[in-house]
């Protein structure tokens, strides 16, 4: 069944609905006064500081749950591409400048150092760092891309010691081309090694 085009009854009905409903002036004035005197929702003015937003405890809980859901979703999305095994390194450039034993950036205590990881991968869309320091979790440590150079970097504070790691480039696990290799290819491609001295303070 097809409806008639541009029915006249529909035009008349919409015109009627658009017409202003007659309201007595004193009733309208009373309504506006009630609105003006009512407390604004979400604004606590009891301490005299206008504009301080106070969330109801349940609202705070709801917000926390929402953030957790967003985080879990993001983690799932990253893990879904990071968990695939591959030895392909074709995406990875050879111009990575991570030193053989990563040079620590001065840190606040002698038990750890901030280490900068860097990988040149101009055509990559996602790069993450996995290793003994983050439970090999590809969602834990994403690298950030410098759009001008195509270099991906991240800085981490690592405890002193020997750490094993790899990059995950668009789902492919690859060793750092500029770092010492570990002889530990139990699961496919070898990993890289970084030594943190923990001496800078």
């Amino acid at each position, binding site marked *: 069944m097809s409806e008639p085009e541009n029915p006249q009854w529909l035009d008349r009905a919409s015109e009627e609905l658009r017409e202003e409903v007659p309201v007595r002036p004193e009733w309208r004035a009373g309504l506006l006064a009630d609105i003006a005197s009512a407390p604004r929702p979400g604004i606590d003015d009891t301490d005299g500081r206008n504009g301080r937003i106070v969330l109801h405890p349940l609202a705070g809980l709801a917000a926390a749950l929402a953030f957790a859901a967003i985080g879990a979703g993001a983690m799932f999305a990253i893990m879904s591409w990071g968990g695939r095994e591959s030895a392909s390194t074709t995406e990875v450039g050879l111009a990575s400048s991570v030193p053989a034993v990563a040079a620590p950036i001065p840190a606040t205590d002698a038990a750890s150092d*901030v280490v900068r990881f860097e990988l040149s991968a101009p055509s990559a869309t996602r790069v993450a760092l996995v290793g003994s*320091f983050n439970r*090999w979790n590809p969602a834990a440590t994403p690298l950030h891309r410098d759009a001008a150079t195509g270099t991906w970097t991240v800085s981490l504070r690592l405890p002193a010691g020997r750490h094993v790691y790899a990059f995950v480039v668009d789902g492919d696990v690859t060793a750092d081309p500029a770092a010492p290799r570990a002889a530990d290819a139990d*699961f496919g491609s070898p990993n890289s090694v970084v*030594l943190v001295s923990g001496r800078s303070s």
Partner: protein
Amino acid sequence: MRRPALIALLLLGPAGAFAQDRTIPPKLAAPTRASLERLIDSAAVAGLPIDPLYSKAQEGVFRGADDARVLAAVQRLARDLGDARTALGDSASGEEITAAANALRAGVKTTELSRLRESHAKRRHSDQRLTVALVVLADLATRGVPPALAAASVTELVARNVSDGALISFRQTIERDLLDGRPAASALDARTRTFIDDAERRRP
């Protein structure tokens, strides 16, 4: 007081300190987890570093290996750690034992590790780390340098009091030589002599 601490923890982000997490991945089946727990407990009782064992299990799960493969890899690493500790002696640190186990995995022999340890013990600068030499040694052997030759060269460099920084440069130089197509043995021989000469010139 808890709230600021929690906020600081949340804001720490990627720059925060990451410590080894001693958990066996829950993705593994219960019998595999039980076997790993027993294995790691035994390693701890024997005084071996156990963080690498947890890391190996976590890496296996991340890379999609099945339970049997994960268990086999952790067992093999535990054996290598035990052999490495025997080669280096009871005073070796967990970091040294772990690096030495990796060198064993690359094909270096326990007798060669012991010789390297002895050379290192005679060094004049106590702040030079045996771990650096072991990492360089494992890397060279992994890249195709014959392990016995690599061990002899690194031991000689350590004996000549070559610094940690020079050892790292040595590794990078050999890597470049190999990428340029130079035969591993000749590259190693030439570079070892160069670095020893340089160390001799710098000696006061």
